[in-house]
């Protein structure tokens, strides 16, 4: 893919000298970057996550509902222990608060584990990987495919006799493993993605699904337990003093009993229902995602079956709940190594990129140069991205209407929504790239089939776009162009 074979080796020579020089004097580069304390990887994590306790705790960005969950559980349980337990332990048995205590402890433990742990986030591709993948995709699809459509970015794999399509994630620049999905709220690809749960303030994926299930299961038991014994308390008391008297006494002496019952009543149905649903999912080894999309349902065809299921309910349950726990792949608390190339495509703009420029300089110059050449060659469509504020959830892109839009103003089929190049957009005034929404999912990624580049967009001779692109290139540094250029390779085949 190197256009000039002659210029290639020369360039490699120059840049290889730089890389050897800087790496043979390791003292210099760490010094340049690490003037302050060495950074941990969580500080430059490209997803939309919050970290606490120096990287030990990881949650989604919106945690308000999680605090609500905590408050509800703590208050309900607290009231139960404070007001109902003394009476019940006297009247019936002290085992009641004991069991209640164990259940409460279990609920809190599993809730915190679910909320604070890494759901199975896949780290984004390093620049080298991304470039290599792009190369392979272009080889596989052939540049002379003719049409204006960008080649579909899917791979097909046969798993247990069932054909599964692996989709390319434009944000993370990887082919998603089977069952993985990209969460638009957290802006991460998550392995065995189940769903994003606002109640626990985190995604539910491979690594925390069992904690989540244990949480809702134990919470069902706890709510049923509390509900039952609150009712028992009222009944027993009313036997003593009469029902109305019991209720009358209760606000004065045992406040919130009714509130407790009401809260529990509503929780019971929803939580128990949810537990039942997830029990079904576990026994058939499906994720919520797959179930909602009907990936393995018989309605899609007689031959459609779930290739991941072990065949019987018991094995499926054991595998999901007692199987091995894979470690976190994102190494939150590790220190950033000066030698290792850092991740491309931060969604939070330029700050992360600036910190890692020295690394990417050292190791990927040849890739950068090659990719930049393609941007120059493509020069067909504007490549640029929106402001970071545009989260890809809001804006659907109707494929047809964009044709009528002015050539310079729209970038169609542009794959990567959340990555942003603020310096480029502000200068060139090119407008946003509006990503497509896939039908069923709450989160966002471009399916290649839905990302057409209609013929009208292709300015075989549009001077405006051409000049814009050149203008852009002159402004940006090569490194910041690297992301765009890698994305620009998508456009290559449409040229």
């Amino acid at each position, binding site marked *: 893919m190197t256009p000039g074979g002659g210029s290639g080796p020369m360039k490699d020579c120059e840049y*290889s000298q730089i890389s050897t020089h800087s790496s*043979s004097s390791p003292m210099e580069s760490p010094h340049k970057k690490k003037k302050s304390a060495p950074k941990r990887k969580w500080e430059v994590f490209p997803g939309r996550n919050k970290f606490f306790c120096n990287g030990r705790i990881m949650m989604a960005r919106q945690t308000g509902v999680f605090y609500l969950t905590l408050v509800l559980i703590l208050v309900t349980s607290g009231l139960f222990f404070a007001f109902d337990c003394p009476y019940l332990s006297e009247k019936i048995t002290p085992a009641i608060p004991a069991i209640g205590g164990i259940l409460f402890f279990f609920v809190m433990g599993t809730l915190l584990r679910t909320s604070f742990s890494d759901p199975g986030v896949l780290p984004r591709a390093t620049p080298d990987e991304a470039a290599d993948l792009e190369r392979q995709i272009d080889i596989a699809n052939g540049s002379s495919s003719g049409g204006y459509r960008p080649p579909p970015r899917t791979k097909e*794999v046969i798993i247990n006799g069932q054909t599964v399509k692996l989709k390319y994630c434009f944000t993370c620049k990887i082919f998603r493993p089977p069952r993985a999905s990209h969460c638009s709220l957290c802006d991460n690809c998550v392995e065995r993605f189940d769903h994003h749960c606002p109640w626990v303030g985190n995604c539910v994926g491979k690594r925390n699904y069992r904690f989540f299930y244990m949480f809702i299961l134990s919470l069902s038991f706890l709510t049923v337990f509390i509900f039952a014994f609150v009712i028992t308390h009222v009944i027993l008391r009313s036997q003593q003093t009469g029902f109305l008297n019991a209720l009358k006494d209760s606000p004065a002496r045992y406040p919130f009993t009714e509130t407790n019952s009401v809260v529990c009543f509503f929780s019971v149905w929803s939580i128990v229902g949810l537990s039942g649903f997830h029990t079904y999912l576990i026994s058939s080894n499906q994720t919520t995602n797959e179930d909602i999309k009907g990936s393995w349902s018989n309605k899609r065809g007689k031959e459609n079956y779930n290739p991941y299921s072990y065949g019987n309910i018991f094995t499926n349950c054991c595998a999901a709940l007692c199987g*091995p726990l894979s470690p976190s792949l994102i190494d939150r608390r590790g220190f950033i190594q000066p030698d290792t190339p850092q991740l491309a495509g931060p969604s939070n703009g330029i700050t992360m990129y600036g910190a890692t420029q020295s690394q990417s300089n050292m190791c990927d110059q040849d890739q950068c140069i090659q990719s930049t050449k393609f941007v120059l060659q493509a020069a067909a469509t504007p490549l640029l991205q929106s402001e970071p504020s545009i989260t890809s959830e809001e804006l659907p892109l109707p494929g047809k209407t964009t044709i009528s839009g002015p050539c310079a103003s729209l970038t169609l089929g542009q794959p990567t929504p959340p990555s942003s190049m603020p310096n480029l957009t502000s200068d060139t005034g090119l407008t946003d790239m509006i990503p497509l929404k896939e039908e069923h999912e709450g989160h966002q990624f471009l399916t290649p089939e839905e990302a057409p580049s209609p013929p009208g967009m292709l300015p075989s001779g549009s001077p405006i776009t051409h000049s814009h692109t050149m203008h852009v290139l002159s402004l940006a540094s090569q490194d910041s162009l690297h992301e765009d250029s890698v994305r620009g390779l998508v456009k290559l085949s449409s040229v």
Partner: protein
Amino acid sequence: TVPQVHSLQELRRSASLATKVFVQRDYSDGTTCQFQTKFPPELESRIERQLFEETVKTLNGFYAEAEKIGGSSYLEGCLACATAYFIFLCMETHYEKVLKKISKYIQEQNEKIYAPRGLLLTDPLERGMRVIEISIYEDRCSSGSSSSGSSSSSSGGGGAG
């Protein structure tokens, strides 16, 4: 920590990074971690096919062992569940133990087999378990420029150039 420090430093002092080859995951068995044993053409001149395949097969074996669902993993899972998963705060899981073995194995392979041939394996764990990254180094002072040029153009050859 960078495991292959001494070999890596030596390698980098005398050689320069020419290109990287990525061995992708093999999903034909489902979501279990396995890597493709297909021999990358870029390594044709650098290492014997059989050595490479053996490395990948051994790694696949390690990962299969880590993810094995059987008696001991059930025991671990049930015990962890019974303690509301608090036991994970003090105990190392079976998977983590195997990963340590893998890391040692890779380091050993690098020292014995790959570094002498100007190659370097990167632990897949550092790449999100997606790829085995093999860095190909060229000797800077030898006819490095021409061979690195040919290797990069061969890896990119046939593309949209």
